């Protein structure tokens, strides 16, 4: 493990600026071509579960972004001292602690939203995007790029969840951000309220994105 990281660092010997072209890609790639949800198909569980209404979804995105940034930077800082054999459990501990902090803060300052998100805040711990970024990126890169990578992937998560929540709230309950849009007589749509609706909307989004980018799954 340690020799691996040293080798990677040796390659980027000359000091590059934080917002170099390569580093800017760390933010832009996850937004589209390498999106964690639609392309890597990670973190789909929460994309289906917390997208019934826009406001909780926004809080969820901010929470994931927060956890991702802090855990990515923390693991990146520790990358040379973490014993390889217990690295996964250390990552898990860092993520779980950060999620517990988020949960406590939501309970204190956004009580209603924390009730709506209920168990899904805790389930950020098991969000594959976070562990995926820690393993694939933070362990082998400096804190600066790790920070950008976290921002990129956090926003990449949000950029999918928010449209899904938009369509689900609009067609499911006829409202947006809790304000009624489709009129009092709109009967609501049970399919959109259930995870099935999320699956359909997400599938359509993936279809749209892939047909635009010409991306195909490698066999």
């Amino acid at each position: 493990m340690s020799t691996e990281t040293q080798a990677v660092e040796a390659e980027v010997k000359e000091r590059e600026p934080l917002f170099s072209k390569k580093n800017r890609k760390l933010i832009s790639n996850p937004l589209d071509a390498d999106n964690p949800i639609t392309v890597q198909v990670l973190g789909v569980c929460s994309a289906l579960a917390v997208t019934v209404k826009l406001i909780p979804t926004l809080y969820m995105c901010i929470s994931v972004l927060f956890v991702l940034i802090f855990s990515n930077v923390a693991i990146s800082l520790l990358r040379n001292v973490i014993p390889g054999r217990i690295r996964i459990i250390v990552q898990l501990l860092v993520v779980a602690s950060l999620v517990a902090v988020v949960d406590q803060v939501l309970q204190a300052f956004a009580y209603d939203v924390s009730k709506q998100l209920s168990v899904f805040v805790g389930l950020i711990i098991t969000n594959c995007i976070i562990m995926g970024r820690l393993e694939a990126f933070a362990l082998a890169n400096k804190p600066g790029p790790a920070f950008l990578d976290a921002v990129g992937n956090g926003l990449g998560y949000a950029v999918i969840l928010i449209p899904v929540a938009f369509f689900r709230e609009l067609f499911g309950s006829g409202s947006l951000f809790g304000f009624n849009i489709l009129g009092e007589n709109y009967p609501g749509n049970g399919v959109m309220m259930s995870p099935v609706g999320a699956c359909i909307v997400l599938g359509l989004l993936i279809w749209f994105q892939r047909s635009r980018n010409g991306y195909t799954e490698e066999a």
Partner: protein
Amino acid sequence: MSKLNKNSSGYIFGFALLVILVCGVLLSVVSGALAEKQYEERELERKKFILKAALGDKMDEVEKPDIAVMYDKRVKESVVNSKGEVVEGLAANTVKLKNEYKKLEKNGSLKAGESINLPVYEVMNEDGSAVDFYVVPTYGFGLWDNIWGYVALQKDLNTINGVVLDHKGETPGLGARITEDKIQKRYSAGKKIFEGDKLVSVTMQKGEGNDYSSDPHAVDGMSGATLTADGVNTMMANYMNLYLSFINAKKS
């Protein structure tokens, strides 16, 4: 200092211990710092639920700071036991409903030798001269996890004025609909818990979209959430029964 062997057991244990300590300290500091604010939020919610059961929709427009003021002005708290006697020296907000609920048998009767603490909230009229509503908390089990609620009875201690229901883990879009105003209002349309002198409670029916306006003891159900509705019905029946002595004592 020579280079540490990162694969030695000593290093691994030391590292693990250090990370655990740092995370542990972080968590306890955060939790300690936020505990008071979290308690305030839960208290505010309890007060809002009680007032909403009694006073209805207009509570949705009351700003957060005003809820506490209104509560202090209009609500008189007390605690009774299942015999209807006032339990002295016990504040209603310190009664943990979840713990009290554990004193019940499966069939809703009190376990032998147990004494249950039942909070009663009397919502007074504007000038505080007489009781307008009696609000009683209820607690039970839905499909997946605990459910609870507040039932506001009118002065006759028979007609339900309103209910507020909440849950821990019912299915969103199905059982979780008990938190919706639309569902809770079904209990407000002149439903009664007594038939003559006999306690019959109010039962949510199976199926949705039926008219029960002629039956004072039935409300329209929730399609796809019959098991949650069963939980609500059991909860309602159990607690109305527990409060029966109190209700009878107040009536006479």
